[in-house]
């Protein structure tokens, strides 16, 4: 507060010429200030960290560098600009590094898994063999993730078949029927989206395995996955259905359409690409879930392609057990499984981004061309009738 009043007093006489405040400008000064602060901080950090003070560790080095960088930046900026502008620039820099940090973490996670997994994956047999004939001491050329891949794909497809219809119907309820009664449903769905992942596994263990008496199997695992995915599907689908323009619904009602015809023929087709994105994103979330599967899927070293009978392994489970083995080859195998899992997630993610390219109601080029052709055909037919 005090700083505020000081700056206004200091700048008031100069700002007589009524120049607008530039918000986004890249000037030589701003770039040089950034670089200067970064380089200066790096140099001081190196001297302090590696020579003067008894510190060690890569992470600590960069944490100290960042703190020094912010301090340098404020100091250099304060030499040339007024306090208000310094504060503004300080926060821009701080928030921008936040964005860079998030991107860096994601890239680091993905790249680390891919690089560490490569020694296992470069043997193509890794994807065609199971662990049935491979122990901790067998070389990396034998043993693979074929059984886990099959298990993962079967479980995620079953879970999608279970969770998506119910989830989309619930989303239609929230978006189309709505009203006061829907509010607690929406609140609970929101709350369940960050339900502890182990709880759904524990629930299926208590309900399906212990009470009903169904043995541990891939199907039980997909039930647990479905419980985890259901609120995610509902939440994401509702957001998509909400942005379907109300005018489309009104047009359908005005033509005498009932509510269910409107939903089936207008709302859902309009939101189709968005719904596809919601479903695929939920699949990407579900495919990597370990905890729900851990409790109810059991663990098999060999191939079991039948999800309804016998224990089945999925990729996250494979990684979980292999990484806990003390043998080094098993750790490499775990990263090989991680490689496959990350690629699966990335592929699903890419599909989701492609499917949800436009906003609902906006046509792709191919759809527009088809519609134009269709209407031209109808016009020709009408003219033919008139003649």
């Amino acid at each position: 507060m005090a700083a505020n009043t000081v700056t206004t007093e200091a700048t008031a006489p100069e700002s007589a010429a009524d120049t607008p405040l530039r918000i986004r400008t890249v000037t030589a000064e701003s770039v040089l200030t950034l670089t200067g602060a970064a380089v200066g901080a790096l140099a001081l950090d190196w001297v302090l960290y590696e020579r003067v003070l008894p510190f060690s560790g890569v992470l600590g080095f960069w944490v100290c560098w960042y703190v020094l960088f912010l301090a340098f930046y404020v100091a250099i900026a304060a030499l040339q600009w007024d306090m208000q502008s310094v504060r503004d620039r300080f926060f821009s820099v701080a928030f921008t590094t936040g964005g860079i940090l998030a991107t860096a973490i994601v890239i680091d996670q993905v790249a680390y898994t891919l690089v560490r997994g490569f020694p296992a994956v470069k043997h193509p047999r890794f994807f065609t063999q199971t662990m049935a004939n491979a122990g901790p001491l067998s070389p990396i050329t034998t043993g693979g993730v074929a059984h886990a891949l099959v298990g993962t794909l079967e479980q995620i497809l079953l879970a999608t078949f279970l969770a998506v219809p119910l989830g989309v119907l619930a989303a239609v309820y929230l978006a189309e029927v709505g009203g006061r009664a829907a509010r607690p449903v929406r609140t609970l769905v929101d709350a369940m989206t960050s339900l502890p992942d182990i709880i759904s596994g524990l629930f299926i263990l208590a309900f399906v395995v212990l009470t009903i008496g169904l043995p541990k199997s891939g199907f039980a695992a997909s039930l647990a996955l479905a419980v985890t995915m259901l609120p995610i599907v509902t939440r994401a689908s509702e957001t998509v259905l909400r942005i379907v323009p109300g005018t489309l619904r009104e047009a359908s009602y005005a033509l005498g359409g009932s509510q269910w015809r409107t939903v089936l023929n207008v709302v859902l087709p309009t939101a189709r690409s968005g719904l596809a994105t919601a479903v695929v994103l939920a699949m990407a979330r579900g495919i990597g879930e370990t905890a729900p599967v851990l409790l109810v899927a059991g663990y098999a070293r060999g191939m079991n392609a039948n999800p309804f009978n016998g224990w089945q392994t999925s990729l996250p489970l494979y990684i979980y057990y292999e990484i806990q083995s003390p043998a080094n080859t098993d750790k490499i195998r775990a990263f090989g499984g991680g490689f496959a899992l990350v690629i699966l997630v990335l592929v699903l993610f890419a599909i989701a981004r492609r499917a949800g390219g436009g906003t609902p109601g906006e046509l792709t080029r191919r759809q527009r061309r088809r519609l134009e052709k269709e209407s031209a055909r109808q016009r020709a037919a009408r003219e033919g009738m008139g003649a």
Partner: protein
Amino acid sequence: VAQVSTGDKIFRGILRASGWSVFVITGLILIFLIVRATKAFRFMGAAFLTTSSWITFSPQHFGIAAILPFGILIALIAMIIAVPTGIAIALYISEYAPARLKPSLIAVIDLMAAIPSIIFGLWGLLFLLPRIIGFDSWLGRHLGFIPVFDFRKSTSIAANYVGSTFIAGIVVSLMVIPIVTSLSRQVFSQAPQGEREGAYALGATRWGMVRTVVLPFGRAGVIGATMLGLGRALGETIAVTLIITPAWIFNYHVLESGSNSIASRIAVDFGSFPDAGSMGLSALMAAGLVLFGMTLIVNTLGAIVISRSRSGAATAD
């Protein structure tokens, strides 16, 4: 007013049933956990809340007095890191990032939410751990006068740092950041355009506008996002299980090796009891029930706060 047709009545009935099915599922979870946990609760009584040890083979003596506070401590560390970082990222995406970059940044955050927790676990165990020990030891030696960073063991042995509450908290924070970021970004981007322009018209810098318009407008959303993130942090299982070294006496010295949590206890222990009626399984169900009840309350409060902030936004536009 047109009469609702029979088809529509049936249709709405189906929709309503599927909407309320989420209540049915939550109810079933509660019922089955309670039923399965009864045996353990009967056996231990109120001592379940005050016992630190977890011995489920005879002579049985178990409780959550160590694993519950350890788990809460991990979640707190995660929140201390994730909330400021998440808000900074959200502000960058909604207010600072160039328009061309925005969709890709949102995709990056979505991808971060979709990275499996087992991958976070691998990364934390084999990438982060060796690189963070130096920082840990620095904290212990120079900030040890703060009780939380007090390090009571020899600082020169790496094994004394491995599997600590602090490292688990950092890894969990990375899983909470996307939740906090995406929810806060949504409320930030809903801040009314007129008031933003008003702030600029009064001569505000961009930070001035963010401080006086965007942050106050998004406050409820940020609080809700924080609570939903806390729910996630409390229940994180696999990454925590891989990273921590189990400890059975609670201490708040976060840098020292040894920690625990309810979820990781369940993940480690569930396989030891093939018999459906065993006390060990019932004890795990009881711990799971405590975890579920706690996160359900936190998440529901968070969801209510968020829905309030959303309903305000709906009237604004």
